[in-house]
């Protein structure tokens, strides 16, 4: 029996590869397992090679590794493309009608499991597109799980299309399940140990986690131009707009999007935008506007491999320094970097509070790996109460005499002055992109300008008390200290476990909050460390550049990856061992 298995389905785009991964993942969370799923696909709708990998564990784990226990190959190409990932004991489920490859070319010990997908589809009078459903039934049988969880997931997935569609899909999955029991009953090598989770888990991608956080925080307006990898957030918001009184607007471009969000914000609602690097490049002008008019907004920047259009469907952490430095002029901002879906949800609720509290733009620096992978989150965590802090927001009536209200009061100690919204009585002001006085009238006198710039920048000092400090996990007096940020934390923590198994003492420092940078805390942690290795998903080690700027500490060793594929723990552990 296995505590962990990794299952992979591959085939041509348009054949339900993506949905198969989610359905398998949900079937196993319902059975008490921890799951994680990651996709890999080109920027095409039909014809490209799509892959979904699902890891299922009886106990919690942090992400993928090099294991591959089962490959479901929906076409010839799928076997050929993944030949190098196969190892002794890997089960390869394939349709004998696709078998153009030679078994002798596969690594020794691979177990071939012919599954007549096309014949079963024909027998059941079903569409060829449903081969993935047969494979799901067969996979569940090989993993030693009962059929009921898969059938319940299929029911929930297709119920909107009617009972007939549900029955047809269940029948087809059952055929795959039964075929395995009839023909491969002796195959028990990938049977999973019983799941240990007793509480309910949701399975969401990172974009949905951000969406849940936004709904929980009271988001009312989002203007998002479609762009990979944040499209699932659009779907989530548009699907739930009516139910939660949210306006999701598809703007004509990202420039319009951020200006709409700023307009909604100064009108008094919580608003956000989401985009990737190229779209954010267009929003830089608007970011500066938000800084100037002190409009709270949340920006979800889903990073992908750049520059320019880059590799739209592949991951990177390339916008750390861009997010920190973007915008003409000097103004405060906060940049948060969630490492997984739990943090994507929690940091989103936090981001809206910080934006309101300081009347500034707040970034969620996510990436393709986070946004499009499937993660599980305990329902109990999502049911915990959430604090909502709207900061110094005045509605109804400011209670002041006509002309007394100063929206941009430079006397405010923390730089944050009470704001009214259009319609607030005795609260009239101008949200002005020009430098301005307390009421918002244009002002370019030297003294006034300095006072207003100081007012805005004083927020940076006030924010310090809210900073989430870097976390340190691992051994005391470590041989190796890894430094990382955002989603690279998961693979680095898994690498730590691998190195510890080899007798190394290892520690991981991770930055969930990257700007304003927690320099004092970083300096204290890093000064103590012996051998420090910076690990990040970009070519120029942007975090180490930031650390050097902020602390003067120059991290000598780095493990960087910028081929668009997420880190595997083994890669990090091997590179770290090379240096010993």
């Amino acid at each position: 029996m296995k505590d962990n298995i990794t299952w992979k389905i591959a085939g041509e785009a348009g054949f339900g590869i993506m949905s198969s991964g989610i359905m398998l993942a949900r079937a196993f969370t319902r059975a008490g397992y921890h799951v994680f799923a990651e996709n890999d696909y080109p920027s095409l709708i039909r014809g490209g090679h799509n892959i979904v990998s699902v890891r299922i564990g009886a106990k919690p784990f942090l992400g993928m590794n090099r294991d591959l226990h089962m490959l479901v190959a929906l076409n010839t190409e799928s076997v050929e493309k993944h030949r190098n990932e196969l190892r002794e004991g890997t089960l390869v489920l394939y349709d004998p009608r696709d078998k153009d490859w030679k078994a002798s070319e596969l690594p020794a010990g691979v177990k071939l499991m012919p599954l007549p997908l096309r014949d079963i589809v024909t027998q059941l009078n079903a569409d060829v597109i449903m081969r993935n459903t047969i494979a799901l039934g067969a996979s569940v049988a090989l993993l030693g799980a009962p059929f009921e969880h898969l059938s319940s997931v299929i029911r929930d997935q297709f119920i909107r299309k009617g009972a007939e569609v549900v029955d047809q899909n269940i029948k087809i999955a059952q055929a795959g399940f039964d075929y395995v029991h009839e023909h491969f009953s002796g195959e028990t090598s990938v049977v999973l140990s019983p799941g240990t989770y007793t509480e309910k888990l949701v399975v969401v991608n990172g974009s949905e986690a951000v969406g849940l956080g936004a709904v929980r925080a009271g988001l009312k307006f989002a203007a998002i131009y479609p762009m990979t990898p944040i499209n699932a957030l659009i779907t989530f918001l548009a699907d739930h707009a009516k139910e939660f009184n949210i306006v999701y607007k598809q703007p004509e471009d990202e420039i319009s999007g951020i200006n709409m969000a700023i307009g909604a914000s100064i009108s008094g609602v919580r608003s956000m935008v989401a985009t990737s690097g190229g779209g954010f490049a267009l929003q830089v002008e608007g970011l500066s506007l938000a800084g100037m008019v002190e409009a709270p907004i949340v920006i979800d920047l889903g990073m992908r491999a750049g520059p320019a259009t880059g590799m739209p469907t592949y991951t990177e952490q390339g916008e750390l320094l861009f997010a920190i430095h973007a915008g003409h002029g000097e103004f405060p901002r906060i940049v948060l970097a969630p490492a997984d879906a739990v943090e994507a949800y929690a940091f989103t609720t936090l981001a809206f509070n910080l934006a309101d509290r300081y009347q500034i733009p707040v970034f969620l620096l996510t990436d393709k790996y986070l946004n499009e992978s499937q993660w599980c989150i305990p329902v109990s965590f999502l049911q915990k109460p959430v604090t909502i802090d709207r900061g110094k927001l005045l509605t109804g009536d400011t209670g002041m005499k006509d002309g007394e209200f100063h929206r941009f009061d430079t006397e405010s100690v923390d730089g944050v002055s009470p704001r009214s919204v259009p319609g607030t009585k005795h609260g009239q002001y101008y949200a002005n992109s020009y430098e301005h006085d307390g009421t918002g009238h244009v002002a370019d006198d030297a003294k006034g300008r300095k006072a207003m710039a100081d007012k805005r920048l004083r927020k940076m000092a006030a924010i310090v008390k809210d900073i989430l400090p870097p976390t340190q996990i691992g051994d005391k007096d470590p041989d190796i200290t890894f430094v990382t940020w955002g989603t690279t934390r998961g693979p680095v923590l898994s690498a730590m476990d691998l190195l510890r198994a080899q007798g190394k003492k290892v520690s991981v420092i991770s930055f969930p909050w990257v700007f304003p940078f927690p320099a004092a805390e970083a300096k204290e942690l890093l000064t103590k460390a012996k051998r420090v290795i910076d690990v990040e998903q970009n070519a120029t080690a942007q975090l180490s550049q930031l650390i050097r700027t902020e602390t003067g500490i120059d991290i000598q060793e780095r493990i960087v990856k910028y081929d668009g594929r997420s880190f595997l723990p083994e890669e990090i552990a091997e590179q770290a061992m090379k240096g010993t």
Partner: protein
Amino acid sequence: MATLTAEGYNTGFLPTWCPGCGDFGIWKSLQGAFAKLGIGPDDGLVVYGIGCHGNMYDWMKMYGFVGLHGRALPVAQGAKLANHTLPVVVVSGDGDCLGEGGNHFIHAAKRNPDLTVIIHDNEVYGLTTGQASPTAKIGFKTKSTPEGATDEPINPLALALVSGATFVARGFAGDMPGLTELMAAAISHKGFAVLDVLQPCVTFDKVHTYQWYRQRLYKLTQESYQPTDRLKALEKAMEWGDKIPLGILYKEDKLTSEDREPALTSAPLSSLPLEPAHWDELLNEFI
């Protein structure tokens, strides 16, 4: 409520426009229209672009948003969606609205938000000291077109009509009573109202003077013209030369951008509670 007068919207700041600028007529007419409609300084929002027109806020007492060049319309749409009971007027220029913000203009018209956009149309960029604007007619000599403009000018009214605007009108800065009435009609219209205002630039345009316009302008009357046919309106919009029409070219009742939002069937978003109802049901979708 005390009776509102145009003077009630003064701020104490004095206009910095050139003496004789067409912007004066537009400013005074807008104050008059707000007073006429009973929209007080705390009751509405004016979103300004960047250009000579945009400096109006300093002497216009009304909630204001002075946006980035070209971006007034998106800000206005966001503000309106957040509070769909709020009167929102956009004060923009020909360069702001049709140059830098051209894409926003087309798409705003397509959505039909309940906004009024007043375009200060004088064929030049005044604040940057006199370059050709998108509405500059062929042959018009400016600092950026010393031999005369060579490109086709954009026709704001025709563009508004083909893009879906539901109220399209032309006014003249030299006719304050007529302009006040047009502005009040535009603001009262439920939908995207485009009011192109011909406005002499006394400093950088020695051709299109008040007199030049007065010799050519004529008013559309109820007897002579019905603003109900988009194609006929397009014909009127193309009329330029010895005779230039003023007035409402087109008006149509149609669902607005806000009407079509399922989230806006009741109170404004800005007045709703933040805590989501049905949270557990939402989580159940992902189990």
